């Protein structure tokens, strides 16, 4: 490793030892000479093509780097999408992009990594013209192109090198995140390349694979999704030998940060930023429950009426107002700040950026859906819940094929556009999206219905309003805590649980504030067993304070009754 950064613009033309390793790919190291030779071969090929704009997607980072620099040197424009879904490909083609790389599983792309036709000599890249475009989901629901000049990225690399270059020394870059997003692109490819460090091409599936991939000094380009899944059995000894662990894509939970610190002795270096801005701030969490973020050199935050604006030395075209941030920020006197959530409807599902607005739009674009509302449900694994109003075609399909088939078809339609990780996992079918009197979606109610405790409550598949009440489609899960003892070998849902469920959902839908007073006309007619699919009808009479319920299936009543609230009369 040399002591100075090699500007990426000069990367392939600068004198450097041709035998220094720059990448580890498919079980072997590639050196600078081999990199340069294959890039040159591709430059010749690409220059012969009449196209100007290319969309580059590659699973592995070394072939990606080869194509990226070949496109730069061939004077082409490079677009970098976050995924290779068919819908993304279609959008890119509409933008006149030529698809390059791993787009079609059936037809693997030949990167010709051993090509070495070196008749052409490369000249340094033009700083004003060399740029790439990150293609990511925008808050309006339309994916938006974000342009980055290589010279801007070079400034960011210089900042990173100044802060952590000594610590990384000659360590190899290992990653569990993709280079198709800005964080991965910088941390696992452009920064190591510029600093003369070797990067690993493969994206590692888990920490065991990562730490066992090399005997040399190394650092980990991680994300909260992987760090929060570490546990007692993780390879801590090898993790503690890493030169550094970086994390970005979303804030790391405090307990996950503490576990890494306690088990490996090293604090995770977290980066806060976005595709639009690049890195903005960083932090290392300690014992205190909330650690503020410190701005990178060259950044300032200013507050205006419509939120926080960033002035960054990485941004050239932000204008005098700076770049408006989508996050709510609380600035401290020492210049550090706390993050307090987003202002728009972009969420991160296990670090995959998702516009809920776009998801709802895509749901409504399918042939079966009239209206849709989606939410993020944060659990040990983040999931998306969808509340959906079916149209006539959707209702017919539900009738004919059943719920699972319908969901499958909707998911298949969505997978044209979205990564599988962000597709809805929880579904509620309803006749209308419930609104508050102020015209806002009743998010709390929907969250409660989508995210029922699977050990104590039934799954709710849908609901419909009825005169004076509501009708829920529920499924009795086999894993309910009530079944093993009631009774061993012959599970039956206890009557008292049925009453508790009726009250639980009654209180969700209706404002029942009076205390319970008595029960009337309770009848248990037919037993309820695991996996039964039932209708629970609840009616609330606010004048008499009576809540009546009825569990039924296929015209047959299982149980019914009435609870009275308030003073006995």
């Amino acid at each position, binding site marked *: 490793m040399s002591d100075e950064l090699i500007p990426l613009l000069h990367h392939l033309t600068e004198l450097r030892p041709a035998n220094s390793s720059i990448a580890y790919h498919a079980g072997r190291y590639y050196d600078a000479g081999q990199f340069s030779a294959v890039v040159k071969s591709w430059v010749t090929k690409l220059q012969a093509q009449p196209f100007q704009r290319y969309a580059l997607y590659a699973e592995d980072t070394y072939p990606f780097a080869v194509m990226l620099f070949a496109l730069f040197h061939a004077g082409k424009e490079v677009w970098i999408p976050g995924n290779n879904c068919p819908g993304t490909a279609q959008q890119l083609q509409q933008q006149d992009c030529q698809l390059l790389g791993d787009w079609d599983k059936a037809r693997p792309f030949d990167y010709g990594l051993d090509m070495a036709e070196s008749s052409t000599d490369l000249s340094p890249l033009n700083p004003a013209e060399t740029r790439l475009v990150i293609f990511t989901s925008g808050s309006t629901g339309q994916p938006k192109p974000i342009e980055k000049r290589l010279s801007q990225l070079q400034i960011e690399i210089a900042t990173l090198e100044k802060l952590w270059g000594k610590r990384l020394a000659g360590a190899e870059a290992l990653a569990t995140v993709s280079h198709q997003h800005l964080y991965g692109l910088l941390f696992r490819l452009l920064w190591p390349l510029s600093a003369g460090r070797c990067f690993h091409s493969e994206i590692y*599936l888990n920490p065991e694979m990562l730490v066992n991939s090399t005997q040399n000094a190394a650092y980990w380009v991680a994300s909260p*999704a992987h760090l929060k899944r570490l546990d007692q059995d993780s390879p801590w000894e090898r993790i503690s030998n890493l030169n550094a662990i970086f994390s970005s894509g979303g804030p790391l939970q405090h307990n996950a940060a503490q576990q890494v610190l306690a088990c490996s002795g090293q604090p995770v270096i977290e980066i806060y930023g976005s595709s639009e801005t690049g890195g903005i701030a960083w932090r290392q969490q300690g014992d205190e429950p909330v650690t503020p973020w410190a701005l990178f050199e060259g950044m300032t935050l200013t507050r205006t009426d419509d939120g926080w604006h960033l002035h960054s030395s990485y941004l050239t075209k932000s204008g005098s107002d700076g770049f408006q941030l989508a996050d709510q920020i609380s600035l401290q006197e020492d210049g550090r700040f706390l993050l307090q959530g987003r202002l728009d409807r972009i969420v991160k599902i296990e670090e995959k950026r998702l516009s809920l607005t776009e998801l709802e739009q895509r749901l409504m674009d399918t042939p079966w859906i009239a209206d849709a509302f989606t939410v993020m449900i944060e659990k040990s694994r983040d999931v998306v819940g969808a509340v959906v109003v079916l149209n006539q075609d959707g209702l017919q399909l539900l009738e004919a094929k059943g719920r699972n088939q319908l969901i499958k078809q909707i998911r298949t339609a969505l997978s044209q556009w979205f990564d599988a990780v962000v597709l809805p996992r929880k579904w509620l079918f309803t006749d209308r999206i419930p609104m508050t009197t102020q015209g806002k979606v009743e998010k709390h109610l929907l969250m409660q219905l989508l995210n029922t405790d699977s050990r104590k409550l039934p799954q709710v598949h849908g609901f419909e309003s009825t005169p004076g009440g509501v009708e829920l489609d529920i499924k009795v899960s086999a894993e309910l805590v009530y079944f093993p003892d009631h009774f061993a070998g012959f599970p039956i849902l206890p009557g008292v649980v049925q009453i508790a469920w009726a009250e639980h959902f009654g209180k969700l839908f209706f404002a029942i504030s009076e205390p319970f007073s008595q029960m009337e006309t309770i009848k248990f007619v037919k037993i309820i067993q695991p996996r039964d699919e039932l209708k629970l009808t609840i009616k609330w009479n606010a004048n008499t304070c009576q809540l009546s319920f009825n569990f039924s299936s296929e015209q047959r009543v299982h149980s019914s009754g009435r609870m009275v609230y308030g003073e006995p009369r």
Partner: protein
Amino acid sequence: MKTREEILKAIKEIMVEMFEMDEQAITLEARLYEDLDFDSIDAVDMIVRLKELTGKAVKPEDFKTARSIGDVVEAVYKMLND
């Protein structure tokens, strides 16, 4: 846990608990990604749970090529009897 039947039973329990799946959907033939809606995060979670269960690390390579529940059972079986 030694036989394929026992391994399948354990995998079913993991999937019902973690992914809230219907046990009846989890058959040897069920395809992870097409039938059970598995994704890359689920694969990571599954590897963690199998390690807890067996005390041995599943080879991610084996898991990467696994397409069905039967393939997962086979990978765990191979690992336990290696």
